């Protein structure tokens, strides 16, 4: 690949040489052709005057004949020269403009701009490969929290659309095949600031290539990859890909959680869907059989979970034999009533429309609901732009593969502790989860829920480490008071305390903090800022702990000690 500047120079060789030659000939002509001065003597232009005249003639025409009026011979030559210089300029300009429109040139200049943009980033960033449903959502989520990212996408159309959006103006984006090592290189895959590589293309082989490339260059760097098949999952795991996300397995797992332990699922749901649709209210009956349309990757993931929890289910498949569907599978698409009735829709608890065709899925939901209005409906939405239609169909639960992977990716980047927290929550009983959920709901109020991690160390929380070093005890509750008025609590809930390898779920407020602790909080985002204030400012910390606003600075401090002493002696 060559630099765009060299391409420009190479293409402009001929026009520049033309201009130089035309100018050279014109100048010589004026020097050689005899003229007349104002007294009628023969006067020859010298090179200086000839160059001066040709220079303004070539570009402007119409400064008049200098320094003396021209003779006929000079005028003839001037006429010729005018046409020659104007044509050579037009030729040069034409070459430049056609070059700017050239596909190759545009590709190169975009590439150059991309390289410059990437080089300008001076904080840790993430490399997003594939700007589909998943990639775009991750980019938007990261952007919302001011985490920069760099985008590689193979479809020019997507890149063009991206460049017209607000986020596209901010984020560097490159149109290239992400499995191409050169594209990854200029996106900074061997750059120290690139702290994570997200392989989210729709092609498994590309994802594999990206993950291998990243792991070879920097084995310790975070690599998260989406996957479409079991074989790829195994392959990705074999060389240490940190997280492999299969949307169908994740969804099947969540669906089960929702049916079996709705509160645990709700906790998960409030974090990933700020405006979540809660059909799984705990009063609902969740015992019964299910009809599942479509037996492919999604179907198999669901089957595994349904078998594990021993829930009766019937599949409907267009080609039961070809897809090796389990015995008892009904043949058909599920969009027509007879097939659904054959699969036992009238006695079923819910229906899952899981084909890879959105129109079919909607049709299944509507037909099934006509047959049995109180069905729980779950639909798979394949195309992002179909969202309004699915919303209008009033489906209980929409399964959007891109969205599921994006949420997981974002959660792992922004609050890695949250994943661990969820796995701990799943081990608890429903009653305590319910209590926790109520606390979270109280804290968040009408606001969007946010989660963040606090680190107790010298850099992030100097006030607290200082207090601990002085032997003062700082409890978790110190972080949860409002620094403006300590009688008020901040709208936040401590979810987990991580100390070394031990993790404590929902730590009690009186827990003493130690250096090196990591605390996972959730609540309104303004609480995070207040906590940062407490952690950094020792005056604020003292106010929180004692309720006193003490004097600051050496002089005031000295005066206060004296006053205290004076009071003591009285």
């Amino acid at each position, binding site marked *: 690949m060559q630099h765009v500047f060299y391409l420009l120079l190479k293409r402009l060789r001929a026009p520049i040489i033309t201009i*130089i*030659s035309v100018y050279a000939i014109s100048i010589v002509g004026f*020097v050689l052709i005899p003229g007349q001065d104002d007294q009628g003597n023969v006067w020859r232009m010298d090179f200086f005057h000839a160059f001066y005249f040709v220079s303004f003639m070539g570009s402007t025409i119409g400064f008049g004949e200098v320094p003396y009026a021209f003779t006929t011979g000079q005028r003839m030559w001037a006429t010729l020269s005018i046409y020659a210089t104007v044509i050579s300029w037009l030729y040069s300009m034409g070459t430049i403009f056609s070059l700017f429109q050239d596909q190759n040139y545009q590709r190169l200049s975009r590439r150059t701009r991309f390289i410059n943009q990437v080089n300008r980033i001076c904080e840790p960033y993430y490399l997003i490969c594939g700007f589909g449903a998943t990639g775009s959502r991750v980019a938007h989520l990261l952007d919302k929290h001011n985490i920069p990212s760099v985008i590689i996408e193979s479809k020019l159309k997507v890149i063009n659309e991206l460049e017209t959006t607000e986020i596209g103006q901010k984020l560097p984006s490159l149109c290239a095949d992400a499995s191409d090592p050169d594209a990854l290189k200029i996106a900074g895959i061997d750059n120290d600031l690139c702290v994570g590589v997200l392989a989210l293309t729709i092609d498994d082989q590309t994802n594999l290539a990206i993950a291998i490339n990243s792991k070879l260059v920097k084995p310790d760097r975070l690599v998260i990859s989406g996957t479409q098949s079991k074989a790829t999952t195994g392959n990705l795991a074999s060389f240490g890909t940190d997280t492999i996300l299969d949307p169908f397995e994740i969804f099947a797992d969540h669906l089960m959680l929702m049916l079996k332990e709705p509160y645990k699922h709700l906790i998960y749901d409030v974090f990933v869907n700020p405006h979540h649709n809660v059909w799984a209210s705990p009063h609902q009956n969740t015992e019964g059989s299910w009809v599942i349309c479509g037996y492919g990757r999604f179907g198999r993931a669901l089957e595994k979970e349904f078998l594990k929890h021993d829930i009766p289910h019937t599949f409907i498949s267009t080609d039961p034999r070809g897809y090796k569907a389990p015995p008892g599978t009904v043949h058909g698409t599920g969009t027509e009533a007879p097939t659904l009735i054959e699969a036992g829709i009238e006695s079923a608890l819910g229906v899952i429309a899981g084909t890879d065709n959105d129109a079919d899925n909607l049709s299944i939901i509507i037909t099934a609901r006509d047959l049995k209005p109180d069905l729980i409906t779950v639909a798979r939405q394949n195309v992002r732009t179909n969202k309004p239609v699915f919303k209008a169909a009033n489906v209980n639960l929409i399964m959007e593969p891109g969205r599921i992977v994006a949420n997981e990716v974002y959660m792992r980047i922004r609050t890695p502790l949250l994943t661990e927290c969820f796995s701990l929550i799943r081990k608890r009983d429903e009653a305590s989860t319910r209590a926790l959920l109520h606390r979270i709901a109280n804290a968040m109020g009408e606001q969007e829920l946010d989660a963040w991690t606090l680190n107790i160390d010298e850099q992030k929380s100097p006030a607290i480490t200082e207090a601990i070093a002085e032997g003062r005890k700082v409890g978790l509750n110190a972080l949860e008071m409002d620094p403006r008025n300590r009688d008020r609590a901040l709208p936040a809930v401590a979810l987990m305390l991580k100390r070394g390898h031990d993790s404590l779920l929902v730590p009690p407020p009186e827990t003493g903090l130690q250096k090196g602790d990591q605390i996972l909080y959730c609540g309104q985002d303004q609480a995070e800022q207040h906590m940062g204030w407490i952690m950094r400012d020792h005056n604020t910390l003292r106010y929180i702990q004692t309720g006193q606003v003490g004097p600051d600075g050496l002089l005031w401090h000295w005066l206060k000690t004296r006053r205290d002493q004076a009071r003591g002696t009285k």
Partner: protein
Amino acid sequence: MNREKIVFAFFIMLALTLNFGFFLGDIDQPEHHSVYELYAAIIVSLIATVMKLGDRTHVGAVLLATSLVADLQLIIAAIIWGAMTHLSDTGMTPHAMASIVSLSAGALLANITSVVLLIVETMTVRH
């Protein structure tokens, strides 16, 4: 045989020969140095420079640099010439002529380097 190579070598060589022709003669004698020859040397040198544009090889870069040096020296010489004949009251002096010719001698060195580089590059191509 390659037409592009011929044109390229022609201009580099011509820049050198014209430059040499101008340089030849007593250093402070205006009659020994033709203004037309200086003009031709500048034009050919400029064209040679443009022909070297956009070459990304190492030799190409050095060739471009030597050409730019020659352009610079010759253009300064031309400016001095113009200034002496039009701006100064004394007209062309032997002292000014000497500095013009010595500037062109500098350009000559750069042009010689260009030609040497060109020959070296030609020799390294085996076929």
